[in-house]
């Protein structure tokens, strides 16, 4: 169908841009985002090829060297090569970020979907549970879990998951509620399909767009959170290189800024990558901006 109802902004006459420029503008951000992410993934995979050093090689005689041709990003307090640790650190940040978000999204979507589909008591209980999780001080929760289970990557991921699923549950619930009242779902009911089939085959595929946006935007969020917990000493077990703990190791070293500055910048770029991508996907899936 043709675009009859033009979106009404405030300018009555706007410059009509060329198709090429519009396309560039619309896709440049997500493409840049995707490129950043891909670049980091590649770095994570080929890390050993990029550096002559090992991330855990301690050499206290070469500590806190400023960036130079031998140590591109300098060395840290134990004389480890910051560049090497940084590129190896990509692995942990990327995987934890994705694992937390994907597992959290999976659990949340399932729970939220069930809540919306079951309604009544079940929905009430599930939604109150999300409220409960959200009203915890997250630090206490994370630290209590880490203290109870022990410090380590897996346990930190578990702690994050505990606070991570509710937002997906809420989103999934509202999405399913919207879809539930759609006529095509009623049509599926009239055909006699089972609730599980309706949920999985009809409702969830149609709710997936906003979920994908949230997942993409949230990976960055998870990476930051994980790094933050590492910064507080709850993340990985040394000597595993991890960006948050690298910043933490260098946070007192204002004059040896390279120790903290580079890993932090790495976090910024990768999170920016996911945000660019997520923002782009949002624009792209949003029917209103699609018509531009």
């Amino acid at each position, binding site marked *: 169908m043709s675009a009859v109802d033009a979106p009404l*902004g*405030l300018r009555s006459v706007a410059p009509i841009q060329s198709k090429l420029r519009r396309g560039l503008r619309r896709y440049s951000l997500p493409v840049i985002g995707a490129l950043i992410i891909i670049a980091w993934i590649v770095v994570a995979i080929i890390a050993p090829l990029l550096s002559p050093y090992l991330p855990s090689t301690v050499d206290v005689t070469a500590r806190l060297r400023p960036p130079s041709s031998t140590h591109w990003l300098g060395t840290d307090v134990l004389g480890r090569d910051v560049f090497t640790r940084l590129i190896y650190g990509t692995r942990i940040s990327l995987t934890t970020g994705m694992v937390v978000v994907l597992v959290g999204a999976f659990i949340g979507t399932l729970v939220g979907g069930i809540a919306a589909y079951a309604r009544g008591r079940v929905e009430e209980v599930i939604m109150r549970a999300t409220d409960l999780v959200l009203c915890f001080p997250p630090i*206490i929760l994370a630290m209590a879990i880490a203290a109870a289970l022990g410090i380590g990557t897996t346990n930190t991921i578990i702690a994050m998951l505990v606070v991570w699923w509710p937002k997906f549950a809420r989103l999934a619930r509202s999405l399913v509620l919207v879809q539930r009242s759609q006529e095509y779902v009623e049509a599926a009911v009239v055909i006699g399909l089972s609730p599980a089939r309706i949920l999985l085959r009809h409702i969830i595929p149609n709710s997936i767009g906003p979920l994908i946006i949230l997942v993409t935007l949230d990976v960055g969020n998870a990476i930051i959170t994980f790094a933050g917990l590492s910064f507080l000493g709850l993340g990985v077990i040394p000597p595993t290189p991890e960006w*948050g703990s690298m910043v933490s190791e260098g946070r007192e070293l204002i004059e040896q800024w390279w120790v903290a500055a580079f890993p932090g910048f790495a976090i910024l770029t990768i999170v920016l990558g996911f945000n660019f991508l997520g923002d782009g996907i949002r624009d792209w899936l949003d029917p209103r901006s699609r018509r531009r």
Partner: protein
Amino acid sequence: MPQYILSRLVLLFVMALLATLVIFLLANMVPGDPVLAQLGDLAASNKEFVAEWRAKWGLDLPLWQRYLIFLQQLSHGDLGISIASQRPVLQDVRDFAPATLELASVSFALSLIVGIPLGIMAAVRRDSWIDHLARLISLIGVSSPTFWLAFILLAVFYGGLQIAPGPGRIDSIGLPPPSVTGLYLLDSALAGDWATFRDAAAHLVLPSIVLAAATLGLITRTTRASMLECMQQDYVRVARAKGLRSRRIVIGHILPNALIPIVTLGGLAYANLLTGAVLTETIFSWPGLGRYTFRSAVSLDFPAIMGITLIVAVVYLIINLVIDVSYALLDPRVVR
């Protein structure tokens, strides 16, 4: 409406208690003994002494009894004595909360004052340079790890350029103003002590920028999206057909509608600022609730943990309630 608020308050109370119960059980799963961490090496090895100290905080009682005692104390408005600081939790909170409140409020105000106009301009001048700028600012804002941003700002403006004051609420040798509210800006203004006021304000600049970064990004983005959404509503076209000026349409017609979702987001963001400033507070040596929370959790300070959980939950839920109530005030369609 009063009916509604009343039942929400009842629910709030139940939820907050549930939160403390969950934290209580979780914290008790930790094998460590908070008393041992507080004692010197000699005392920690004296079994009787340790037992006596454990009894002092009721740690020797069965779980359910300890929780009941907590509830009982709570009914008298008493949150117990902190193990780590050895004074009433409530007093600790009273000491630490104003610092966080001040920082969070200033950051929040900052992100609103910058974020909303920026979002509005980005929406009105969609696809112009200001839109791109706003997008960049907000994306970088939400993408920056707080602890790193804090480090960079401190390194550049404090360590390098030396144009910003260092960590802490006031200068290292300055005296805090006489405590009325605990908020230095307010207290120094009340006391007419403008030097301290300027000092406290200067110390707020960097941490509040750091803390505001993510919120600012969020608010800018939401404002823009909300404005765009509202700009496509029929009533905007009607307003244009009425012959109103653009400014009037934006401020008088679009904004009141666009603000509604920002209330929710802003409220939640404020709640998060209040409860989630640990990293910023750590780096800026800000004597606030975030660091207190962190310290209590690290030292497994049960009374403090329970108290903070309760307070945070109540604050969070009250802010949620306020959001809903202001929703009803902002949006006449919501009738309770």
